[in-house]
């Protein structure tokens, strides 16, 4: 079983704790630093998020850039992750303090690359193009592009509706010479699983959504292994 860590650097909108049904445990210190919070008994999925450090879950983190950068520095350097196969860093939208802080603090470690997530709309890919430029300028390899919210199959009649337009992810990959990792459809079961902190992958292994996420993960893992 792989050991995976998730570092949630979305300080203003930390969603990962809810999605993993982790609640608000205390964060403890050990000799090596802060102990991350584990999502499972086997300790195969570790998480650090500012969500754990807030007394009140509705409390707003109203910080300017320098304070956000300092916190992220601590998250990268002071968390005792232990042995991990993969560390995933979830970021807020943008190309600003959080993104620069993560890269600066990870400089002494190897960053395999970045996955860029878009929806099919031009309004979305228009911003993701700029994020790709950010990666190029900061020397981060683009591992590939994932297109989320890629169509909705009506559960009543099976008609597919392209609610957020169509094809933007593949077009963006072609335009920027990036790998298109795959697309994930809109799925109310995914939305509700995530809200309720359930493991969608365990609950709905026969769904088209599972198949899509699975093939994206496999493509990513083989690309990382081939390095």
């Amino acid at each position, binding site marked *: 079983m792989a050991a995976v860590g998730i570092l949630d650097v979305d300080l203003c*909108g930390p969603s990962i704790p*809810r999605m993993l049904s982790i609640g608000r445990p205390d964060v403890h210190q050990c000799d090596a630093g802060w102990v991350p919070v584990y999502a499972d008994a086997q300790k195969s999925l570790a998480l650090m998020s500012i969500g754990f450090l807030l007394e009140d879950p509705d409390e707003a983190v109203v910080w300017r850039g320098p304070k956000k950068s300092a916190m992220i520095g601590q998250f990268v350097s002071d968390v005792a992750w232990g042995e991990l196969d993969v560390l995933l860093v979830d970021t807020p939208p943008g190309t600003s303090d959080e*993104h620069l802080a993560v890269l600066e603090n990870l400089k002494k470690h190897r960053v395999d690359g970045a996955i860029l997530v878009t929806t099919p709309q031009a309004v979305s890919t*228009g911003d993701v193009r700029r994020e790709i430029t950010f990666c190029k300028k900061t020397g981060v390899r683009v591992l590939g592009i994932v297109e989320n919210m890629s169509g909705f199959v009506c559960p009543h009649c099976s008609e597919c509706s392209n609610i957020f337009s169509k094809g933007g992810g593949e077009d963006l990959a072609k335009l920027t010479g990036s790998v298109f990792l795959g697309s994930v459809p809109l799925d109310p079961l995914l939305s509700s699983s995530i809200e309720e902190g359930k493991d969608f992958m365990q609950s709905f292994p026969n769904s088209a959504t599972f198949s899509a996420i699975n093939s994206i993960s496999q493509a990513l893992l083989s690309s990382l292994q081939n390095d």
Partner: protein
Amino acid sequence: MADVPDNAPEHCPGTTSEQAGKSSSCEGCPNQKVCASGATKAPDPAIAEIGAKLSTVKHKILVLSGKGGVGKSTFSAHLAHALASDSTKEVALLDVDICGPSIPRIMGLEGEQVHQSGSGWSPVYVDDNLAVMSIGFLLSSPDDAVIWRGPKKNGMIKQFLRDVDWGDLDYLIVDTPPGTSDEHLSIVQYLSATHVDGAVIITTPQEVSLQDVRKEIRFCQKVKLPIIGVVENMSGFVCPSCKNTSQIFPPTTGGAERMCADLNLPLLGKVPLDPRIARSCDEGKSFLNEVPDSPSAEVYQNIVQSIKDYCSNRVTEEQSTT
């Protein structure tokens, strides 16, 4: 002094921040002593200048959300279109999403550039009575990334408010990026010598969205920004084929309706998903013009009316107290 002076080191915390002159990045900076003395934290003269400049703007509305991707820019753009459909009103839309400026595309203004004149920067006009400003107009390529830290973003926002020749406006709408950080603090700070009617807060029905939106609401309360109300986007989808409704983003904790009831805030409306909204935005057209009979368009129009009523009630209240 500028928020990030030209001779400042790379990690300058900003001349008006708590860390000014005191952070480790300040070592060796020629401005360190001045910053550490507190002189740079005196009220920014730009605040008064902006107050004067925007005294001819009758109503200012901020569009906020704690969460990304919920449809803030889509809403801001359509609010602007709807308000400007009254040709007797002058409307402007200011996009302060510095890293992800979507407004030019949504308003059909991609590729437009900003012009300078004696009276400042000219915004770009969609119609005679609808003006737009965005950093998108200052970038020469759709691939350009704005890789700026907080202080530099704040400086840009200050310029947008102080140096754009808005003229007399009935409505100034400000579209923001998600979060509760530099852009949000700066907008509130730079508008502190003016009257801001309030904020419209956008969410989707999901708890992961509401969770962040509650923080945004706390932010508004903290900075004493009135909340006009909440809009729930992506609120159900009617299949065009079989007409059944699906909740694609299920309101597992009661959606915006429950949140508004808990927090005693007006729910301005619930906008259903319609693929033609995304298409209109991609094509730079107003969905309200393209598909006026859509249930989503009707909800939008009702929301806009509520906002107009709120703004004119505020004027009536002020007049009756003076």
